[in-house]
């Protein structure tokens, strides 16, 4: 099934997220990624990623539009938009030779070292989903101690 992205403009109030997520839960659709930001208008923008067929996507959009706190639901096509994700990485303490190899590997992938103590590293990387996936895979579970990811945010390329 295809990856789908909704950009939902809604009121920034308690319970709104629950109203939205239950629409997916009830239909046994997993939300792969969800991010929330507050727009200058004071409304919240929720970027939500899931997998569904065309029929369900349209149905979900209409059901979401019926919710009182929702102002708009935009279907985002990944190819027509800018997509970014941020990952924060913490490694296990690493012996000196491996430490420097990992630092180089992170920097080559576009990442940035934020902090380092007793051989362990905290780094950030931002970019497209696959770029982050590649780095995390190449570092592997032996090196990685903890990863915090933002989920994907999108903005349409239309001006």
């Amino acid at each position, binding site marked *: 099934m295809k990856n789908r992205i909704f950009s939902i403009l809604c009121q920034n109030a308690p*319970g709104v997220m*629950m*109203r939205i997520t*239950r629409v997916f839960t*009830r239909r046994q659709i997993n939300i792969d990624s969800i991010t929330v930001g507050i727009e200058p208008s004071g409304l919240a923008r929720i970027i939500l990623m899931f997998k569904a067929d065309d*029929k369900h996507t*349209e*149905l979900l959009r*209409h*059901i979401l*539009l*019926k*919710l*009182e706190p929702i102002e708009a639901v935009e279907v985002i096509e990944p190819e027509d938009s800018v997509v970014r994700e941020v990952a924060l990485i913490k490694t296990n303490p690493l012996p000196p030779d491996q430490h420097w190899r990992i630092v180089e590997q992170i920097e080559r992938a576009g990442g940035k070292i934020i902090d380092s103590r007793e051989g362990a590293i905290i780094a950030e990387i931002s970019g497209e989903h696959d770029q982050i996936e590649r780095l995390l895979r190449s570092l592997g579970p032996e090196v990685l101690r903890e990863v915090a990811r933002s989920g994907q945010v999108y903005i349409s390329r239309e001006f």
Partner: protein
Amino acid sequence: MAEMTGAKAVWECLKAEGVKHVFGIPGGAIISTYDALYGETEITHILTRHEQAAAHAADGYARASGRPGVCMTTSGPGATNLVTGILNAYMDSSPVIAISGQVSTTAIGTDAFQEADMLSLMLPITKHNFIVHRIEELPEVFRMAFAIATTGRPGPVHIDLPKDVQLSKAELEIPAKVEYRKPLKLDPTPSEVTRAVELLVHARQPVIYAGGGVIWSGASPELIELAELLQAPVTTSLLGKGAIPEDHPLALGMLGMHGRMVANLAVTECDLLFAVGVRFSDRATGDVHHFAPRAKVVHIDIDAAEIGKNVRVDHAIVADAKRALRAIIEALKQHLRKGRTSEWLERVNSLRRNLAPRMDYDDVPIKPQRAIKEIMEVAGPDAIITTEVGQCQMWAAHFYRVRRPRHFISSGGLGTMGFGFPAAIGAKVACPDHPVIDIAGDGSFLMNSQELATAVENDIPVVVCIFNNSYLGMVKQWQDLFFGKRRSQTYLGKTPDFAKLAQAYGAWGDRASKPSEIGPKLREAMESGKPAVLDIVVDPDEHVLPMVPAGGRLDEPILT
């Protein structure tokens, strides 16, 4: 602006909405709102004996009158008892305003006495729900609740009202009107109308399929006008019963699992299915892959989320049923040549003649078909019929010819046993000049029979006709048909004596054991001026037939 408590503001808001009746039960967390009701003369409160009945009564009130029904309870168990009733209203798109008390804002989340997380519990089963955190929000919330419940596709709204908000005081102004915020498409576009007319003009074998949306938008006159203009037969969903008088020559009766054979066959054979204000419930369509297999499908509905949800649609119009039908009628008048459907009508009428359901049984124990016939004759076209759920409901739906919109009130989507009696009480409060009759089963009636006390104490003379077969009849029917007649846990026995039960509450009660007794005794019940229970002893082995098995094809019913 005037200084008032939140409790007082509740009633001021309800009065501003024109509310005349509230169904409910007080308790600790709503006591101050009930205190503010004391001495109130513009609103009548009807004290039910269970909160579920308050919700069903408000629902019945809304369906009979077209105006929102209001129910009120305390927090915790009082509020959770509303859940079934509110979901029932939600499934059938009925505008109910449910208000329940809540523990004080400072106590929420502490597992305080009679605290329930009603915001979460009501969220998936209402059109929208609120919790009022500050007294200043209260007037806006109440007015918005009514706007949401009644705008577009109707539905229930719940308001959770913490105790301290009811008690606090503020300078408040009850807004004269609130604007509903969300965009709403009520009118069809010209191109939507043109395409619909094109399809209608080219159809040789059209069937109109009307649902509850026609009734809520007041589109019955347009429905009948369109049917007559096209000379197209009309079938309805359960909730659409009465949208066209069922003694109209073009009316086919209800569609679906327990629908009329003529309706099911006409839909199977039609070349155009013109659906208005329906949601294509599985109980109406059967196997969707063999539903109206030769037809192009036009679907008019005010809720865009219904389009294409259950069946494929060739042409959709998101609009109010009345406005869409009016626009289509006006456009059709320019187009139509007469007599295009005469062959089709001949076919449908010959099906109808050959498949006419039989009702004139003289058997003892009484055949339920005969009981419906007797009730129909005594009740007259003014009577509002409510039903419980199960065999009694489907006998009523299949055989009872409803003559007017809002005169048949039944739990469609949720199928809630115990709905019919409190809904009848609500309908009678809304329409005191109409006879109101609940067609009940012995199983369903016992689920809310305590409301006899409500009906007697408040002098609400509704008549309950119990189709007493000593079984949970519809489950028994499925056991007989699909589970090798293994009647597991469906026999209810002979208790109670319903006539005596009614009399114990101070209501009229009697029993009919022979067909000839039903008419006179029902007349006596209706003329008693009291709430009444007529216990009709029916054949325990009778099934509701024909029946399309769940997921089966409409043209392949079980006949015997």
